[in-house]
């Protein structure tokens, strides 16, 4: 069938974008969000407040708008002569957005750890850093895994927003083929691809979660 002769190579091309945006966002956002969560919980009121405003903006506006803002926004500032490239803008927007959501999840996770854990570390003369890395964070990760999993799945679907900057992900591939052949089949096909990706991720996330089931 002609449709698939065009659809499959284009989908594979598109997968590079979809998966690339997905992986880059996760790999950068997760460590960054732990730092942002700690800043949000900082004793320094100003730092906590600024971080709070950042999170508010990122969660209070659509990711689509953020993408447009970061890519097109600079073109409207005269004399600055600077703008991000498409791919840069995509990664920056996705990372900023997802870091905010993940930071709130980590903040909740850190807050839910019994104060006794911190105190036990304190009386054992452990440093703050060591306490966080070896005692607190492993317990936080276990607690927040289900919520992080949700965000990961949402991210897969959010990658489709890159169309607004004219980048060809799998959804854009489907659209092109659909227009060319006047058929709806590409959309069904790409829907199945999303489902497959989600199925694989769900399995991976379950495996990762069960890694932490050795204790309660």
């Amino acid at each position, binding site marked *: 069938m002609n449709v698939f002769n065009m659809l499959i190579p284009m989908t594979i091309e598109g997968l590079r974008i979809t998966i690339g945006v997905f992986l880059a966002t996760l790999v950068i956002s997760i460590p960054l969000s732990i730092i942002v969560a700690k800043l949000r919980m900082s004793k320094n009121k100003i730092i906590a407040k600024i971080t709070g405003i950042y999170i508010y903006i990122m969660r209070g506006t659509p990711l689509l708008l953020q993408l447009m803002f970061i890519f097109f926004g600079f073109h409207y500032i005269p004399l600055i002569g600077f703008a991000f490239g498409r791919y840069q803008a995509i990664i920056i927007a996705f990372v900023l957005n997802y870091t905010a959501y993940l930071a709130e999840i980590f903040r909740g996770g850190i807050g839910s750890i019994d104060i006794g854990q911190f105190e*036990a570390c*304190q*009386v054992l003369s452990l440093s703050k850093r060591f306490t966080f890395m070896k005692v607190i964070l492993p317990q936080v990760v276990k607690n927040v895994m289900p919520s992080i999993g949700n965000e990961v799945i949402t991210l897969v679907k959010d990658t489709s927003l890159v169309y607004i900057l004219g980048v060809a992900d799998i959804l854009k591939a489907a659209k092109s083929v659909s227009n060319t052949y006047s058929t709806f089949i590409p959309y069904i096909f790409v829907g199945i691809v999303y489902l497959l990706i989600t199925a694989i991720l769900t399995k991976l996330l379950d495996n990762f979660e069960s890694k932490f089931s050795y204790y309660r």
Partner: protein
Amino acid sequence: MTLVVENLSKSYGDTNVFSDISFALEKGEILCIRGKSGQGKTTLLRCLNNLETLDKGSIKINNRYLCKEVNGKVNYASQQELKVIRQDIGFVFQSFNLFPHMTVKENLLLAPKFLKKLSNDEIEKKADELILKLDLSTKSDNYPYQLSGGQKQRVAIARACMLSPSILCFDEPTSALDEETMGQISKIIKELAAQGIAIIIVTHDSAFVEEIGGKVITLKN
């Protein structure tokens, strides 16, 4: 003197928790602090372990001031000094606060391996000895959720002992135990005292106070 405590006072806002508490402990002495609920027993232990700051008074551990009152103001040792002084005093929390994601053995090893005062071999050896002494041999690879209350308590004691403290504080050590395990814990505490560790026990359990012997202070308002 292992521990000298002078004129300790502490309030939370307007509520006075305790005032003008003084006592001293020698190597291997046992001190029981009694008092009704809400009289500040836990708070006193927390102050000794620097989990809470005092309004007045001085605490001297092995001739080093954890904090010292000068002209009505309490000066605490620097962070660097505190780190050292604190290792001389251990705390067995009422709720134990074991690390749930670590085995019994890992709970014991964590702090000494971080502090690196001994070689890894020496640390391992010490952990094995304590595990044996506190009758935890069959549990050393288990996680805290797999232990009984009495076993968790012994892990908490072993974990504190890994740093070889001169003083060990217990908050309500019998609160989670039946009579038999109570006998066991008093035996353990007496053994620790016999090795020269000064012991402070906060409790409202009169039977236990009698069983354990030692000095007694009663907190009153």
